[in-house]
């Protein structure tokens, strides 16, 4: 394996700096390619979801049931995981319990080494991204081949995913054309394709042989079924199926909270997943995999391994952010988030982005490292509104903010500002005096046009907007005066005014 060429996973790691949120945001806002790509979110994914939801009268009922099921499973997670393991093994599968990301990486490596794997095809897996598997495999001279078209594109671009459903959503069509030309020319594709059908076809043809050559295929799992010991993947391209069927070994890498009790319960979730994620009634390929090939099968893997990753989930159970474990990774919250629409996924510097990422990432990476994520939100609540399992995302974001505040992680200037405001707010008399002074001052500053173009301490506002000037006197001031006048008139005039 040519070392220089196979560093995409490592290069992508350079993006993973959640502390750089503000700088990332600034760059994102100036990135015209990104902005035109993001504009398509509003045009496409949002109305698509609404259409799918509108077409299914039972959607809310299903959503409610999904929420109940998740709550039930979380309350009995140990039971369902043990049950899953038992049935998975009964079908000939192997289960690997991994407390940390490193445990999971080592487990994957061991399996790959057992067949002297040189290349590994991969279906899209956010948990695999979470443990930075590609970088690790590259370091161990095993070539990871991303097969999901979006993941393939970002692998060529040496970037991490910017969305959990559409990893390359930040790329314009032209950028994809350039990437393909750059990387496929050496494979004989010297003509720059510009239209999506041709681009898709080129990727299809190039990846075909890779599927057959791979020694190991790695997928994620949208769900695990306790009843049957199965894993489910929900895809559209068919890449996940080629990945898990052709190689000798199929590895499923997933996290603890994915298990559901029965086929029927999984079906409930399947009815709300694609509709929430892409606006489809059902994805093109929903596949339930159980164990390795059976006696008599003429294709299929010889080994089936399920990597069960904890990496912080067991600690989330019973905590303030327990509800986040209900997440079915549909991405609806991400699509509808005004902040995400403005700055895109790379700004977050984490694998999980948007509202769900802002709640999950502090649990996985720590509050201090991810301090901007819960704060960079207007708490508009659109995310909670579209969440198919009713996760109270704004409440959870506030909880992280409270945690940071108690730990003293809130920026000093903000703490002082809040303390000063609270000091006055608890002393109405002082507040009134301060308010009257400040508002007269601001009104005077804005007296020419009724607004200010610049306010020295509020650059965050006035850099992009004018600040309307206050009327001058406060409401309470005028109200009291009006009350006093009325009383005086009643005393002197007597009767109606």
């Amino acid at each position, binding site marked *: 394996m040519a070392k220089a060429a196979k560093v995409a996973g490592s290069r992508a790691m350079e993006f993973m700096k959640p502390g750089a949120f503000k700088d990332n945001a*600034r760059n994102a806002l100036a990135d015209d390619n990104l902005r035109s790509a993001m504009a398509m979110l509003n045009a496409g994914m949002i109305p698509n979801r609404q259409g799918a939801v509108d077409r299914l009268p039972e959607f809310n009922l299903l959503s409610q049931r999904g929420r109940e099921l998740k709550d039930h499973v979380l309350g009995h997670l140990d039971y369902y995981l043990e049950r899953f393991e038992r049935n998975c093994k009964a079908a000939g599968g192997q289960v690997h319990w991994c407390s940390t990301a490193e445990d999971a990486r080592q487990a994957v490596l061991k399996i790959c080494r057992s067949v002297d794997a040189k290349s590994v095809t991969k279906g899209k897996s956010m948990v695999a991204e979470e443990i930075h598997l590609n970088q690790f495999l590259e370091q161990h001279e095993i070539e990871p081949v991303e097969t999901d078209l979006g993941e393939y594109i970002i692998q060529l671009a040496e970037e991490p995913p910017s969305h959990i459903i559409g990893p390359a959503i930040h790329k314009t069509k032209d950028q994809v054309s350039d990437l393909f030309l750059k990387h496929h020319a050496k494979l004989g594709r010297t003509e720059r394709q510009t239209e999506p059908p041709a681009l898709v076809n080129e990727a299809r043809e190039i990846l075909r042989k890779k599927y057959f050559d791979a020694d190991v295929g790695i997928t994620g799992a949208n769900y695990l079924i306790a009843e049957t010991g199965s894993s489910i993947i929900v895809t559209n391209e068919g890449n996940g199926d080629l990945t898990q069927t052709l190689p000798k070994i199929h590895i499923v890498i997933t996290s603890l909270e994915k298990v559901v009790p029965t086929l029927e319960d999984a079906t409930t979730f399947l009815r709300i997943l694609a509709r929430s994620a892409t606006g489809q009634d059902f994805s093109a390929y929903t596949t339930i995999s159980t164990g390795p090939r059976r006696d008599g099968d003429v294709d299929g893997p010889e080994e089936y391994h399920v990597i069960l990753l904890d990496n912080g989930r067991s600690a989330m159970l019973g905590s303030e952010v327990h509800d986040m474990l209900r997440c079915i990774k549909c991405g609806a919250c991400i699509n509808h988030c005004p902040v995400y629409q403005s700055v895109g996924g790379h700004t977050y510097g984490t694998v999980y982005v948007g509202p769900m990422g802002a709640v999950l990432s502090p649990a996985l990476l720590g509050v201090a490292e991810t301090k901007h994520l819960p704060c960079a939100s207007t708490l508009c609540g659109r995310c909670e509104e579209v969440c198919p399992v009713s996760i109270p995302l704004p409440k959870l974001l506030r909880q992280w903010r409270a945690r940071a*505040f108690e730990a003293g992680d809130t920026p000093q200037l903000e703490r002082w500002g809040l303390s000063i405001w609270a000091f006055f707010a608890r002393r109405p008399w002082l507040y009134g005096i301060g308010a009257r002074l400040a*508002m007269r001052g601001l009104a005077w500053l804005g007296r020419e046009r*009724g607004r200010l173009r610049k306010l020295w301490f509020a650059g965050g506002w006035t850099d992009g907007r004018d600040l*309307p*000037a206050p009327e001058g006197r406060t*409401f309470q001031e005028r109200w009291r005066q009006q009350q006093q006048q009325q009383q005086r008139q009643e005393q002197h005039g007597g009767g109606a005014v």
Partner: protein
Amino acid sequence: MANQSSKTINVGLFATCLVDLFRPTVGFAAARLIEDAGGTVHVPEQTCCGQPAYNSGDNRNARAIARSVIESFKNFDYVVVPSGSCGGMIATHYPELFSDDPEWGGQARALAAKTFELTAFMADVMKTTTSRAVYDGTATYHDACAGLRELGVRDQPRELLAAVENLDVVEMAETEACCGFGGTFCVKYGEISTDIVSRKTANVVRTGADLLLAGDLGCLLNIAGRLKREGSSVQVRHVAEVLAGMTDDVPAIGEGGENGESRESGGV
């Protein structure tokens, strides 16, 4: 306090700090509307609902402020707020703040049960459907997030506006999309906030309306500030100003001043 006759409906007006500080006319408009609907308006001494502290994770100060609001407003029949976000703070978050406190929890829930956003109070509680207001023009309405999602305020302002003579209301695209204000967010993440509000102003301008209305002054200051920076002639007012027929009392938000624009028929 006024006579406790069986017919008197005592309403505590929680003006909100933004109305109190920036645009008192909205408070007077709210008072007039409540009186027209049959309520007797009281304005106890007040400062803030505590939301800045609450949203920043400073629950201690948020509770302290909340306790004084609960104390000041507990004896009214209703508490009416010309803002979905402050109204939501009292009506949905006060009970959460005191969920572990048996004494204050009960009081918070009691206050929450009788606290309403202004247009919801008029339409749902007092069932006011008529209006004495007249406004020549076309308006579009922005649904403020908290009012919409925490308090279910959406149809009420539109019903009330429909009763205003000569006024046409056109809907903008994405009326339910956030305007980017978000309290401290607009200052802390100002550039992102500016980008979000620009999407909103684009939708506003695309309607061709000459007036933008909403029920939250935070949103209105934000959107008006951006419209003015963009050089737009669209005027911005709180919905109460139109409903109460008080648009001549004060220039539109961000307008007026010695050299500023104002409505032809009125002015300052």
